[in-house]
């Protein structure tokens, strides 16, 4: 899939977004695109606004300037629940699973949608449990009793229940053991194979480069550079420039 393919519109397009938290000018003109089925990485130091960009796309934060387009239609300002129903899934940085709900109930928050047959629901659940067997074992347990890694799995599984067209993943490997990191990598690949687009915010550079097709680099609230993931190595000067200390 070529990044310069302009014959069809991108799945998600962010155009010159400016976002404020109070008086802080967090996003200073962010523009990026994600094509359908693409895995796109978003790299940058802490605090440059990567999470805020995801939150803006998801409608959790309103931009004061600029637009977000989904399948060509402007969606900035739409409430998040409508965006979720349109097909944008969000896995936040701190997972934020519903701690007092069971694993099953957590999944149901994504499953219980209009227009989903019981059969389809069963299919989706079976799929989730086959990818995440540990969740299957613990399905009646409260979310808060799961380990950090299991909560991450649950957060991703939950979003998969929405059958999203794009998943916004915010630092999924943070705080996880290496074994779970590779599991995350597998999930990303699986989603990619299913045609789900992913916008991946990560500090883990090797993972991002391996899993993504394209990578954007952010600095001081704006996107400064983009490149094909295949053209970069971990020790690339570009990497050092935007992520080095």
């Amino acid at each position, binding site marked *: 899939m070529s990044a310069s393919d302009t014959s069809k519109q991108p799945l998600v397009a962010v155009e010159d977004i400016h976002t404020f938290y109070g008086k802080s000018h967090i996003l200073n003109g962010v523009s990026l695109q994600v094509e359908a089925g693409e895995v796109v990485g978003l790299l940058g130091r802490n605090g440059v606004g990567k999470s805020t960009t995801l939150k803006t796309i998801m409608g959790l934060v309103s931009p004061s300037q600029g637009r977000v387009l989904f399948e060509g239609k402007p969606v900035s300002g739409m409430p*998040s629940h409508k965006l979720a*129903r349109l097909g944008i899934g969000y896995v936040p940085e701190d997972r934020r699973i519903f*701690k007092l*709900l069971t694993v099953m109930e957590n999944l149901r*928050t994504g499953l219980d949608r209009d227009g989903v047959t019981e059969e389809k629901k069963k299919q989706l659940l079976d799929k989730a449990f086959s990818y995440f067997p540990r969740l299957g074992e613990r399905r009646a347990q409260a979310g808060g009793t799961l380990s950090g890694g299991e909560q991450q799995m649950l957060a991703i599984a939950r*979003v998969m229940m929405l059958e999203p067209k794009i998943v916004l993943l915010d630092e999924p490997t943070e705080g996880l053991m290496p074994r779970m990191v590779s599991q995350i990598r597998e999930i990303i690949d699986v989603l990619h194979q299913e045609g789900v687009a992913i916008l991946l915010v990560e500090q883990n550079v090797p993972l991002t480069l391996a899993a993504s097709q394209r990578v954007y680099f952010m600095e001081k609230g704006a996107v400064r550079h983009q490149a094909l993931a295949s053209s970069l190595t971990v020790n690339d000067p570009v990497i050092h420039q935007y992520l080095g200390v």
Partner: protein
Amino acid sequence: MDIPWDIIVIQTVNGIVTGMILALVASGLTLIFGIMDVVNFAHGELFMLGAYMGVIVLTTTGSFWLALVLAILIVALLGAAMQVITLRPLLGRDPLNTILATFGISLVLQNYALWQFGPVARKIQEPFTGQFSLFYLQYPWYRILIALLSAGIIGGLYLFLKYGRYGIWIRATTQDRVMAQAMGIPVPWVHTGVFALGAGMAAASGVLFGPLVGVNHAMGLDWVLKAFIVVVVGGMGNLGGSILAAIFISLLEAYASIWVSPSQAIIVSSVVLILTLLFRPTGLFVPTPK
């Protein structure tokens, strides 16, 4: 000392009966607070309007049960309208704003009711009379029915919240409103729905309690105060806690009224409130958080 066992048993029964009604009123209040941080000052007026709706339907149709059902539905709708018109615009603002707005609504509703229905109390006829002997008293069966019905409604609420798609929506929204929305749950409507639910429960209490006292425009005031005490003592947003607190406080007041006049019994509940706030501010029946 000669312990008046018969009076104590009678007061226990009375306390439980009042406690169940109070629990019904307070559950609506605590549900609304738990899910959207709104202190609904107008809750007592929803109770009062429910009672009046009950009076109207009863006089037109002669059926108590129809009155109960219709009062619940009408007031629930009214509550939903209230929430959409006055509370949605206040979302995200300081909680003081919602307290004031609901206080304003309570004044409007109270005075409107006074004008519309007049100052003379109305009566709701019990669906059946009939009493059983409790010691030296003839105790009305109806009171037992009230307790059972209230328990039933609260039980139904519990089941609804625990199972059922909307119950999950409500619980998810209570825990993490932002994430619930990100999962496609239409949070603004969940809020409206819960408000309507709370309103409906208040209305049910009004109709059920109606036959015990006269229905008049000011009947909500005392109840809202007691309900607030119950909600704070039980732990704000804690459904189980409010039910326990409601029964606990009603029992204490029932026992206290053996010795003091009923209007002074509120001091009992206030003392409980003070003690709770001093020593267990998150709620008497809530395990102390870390």
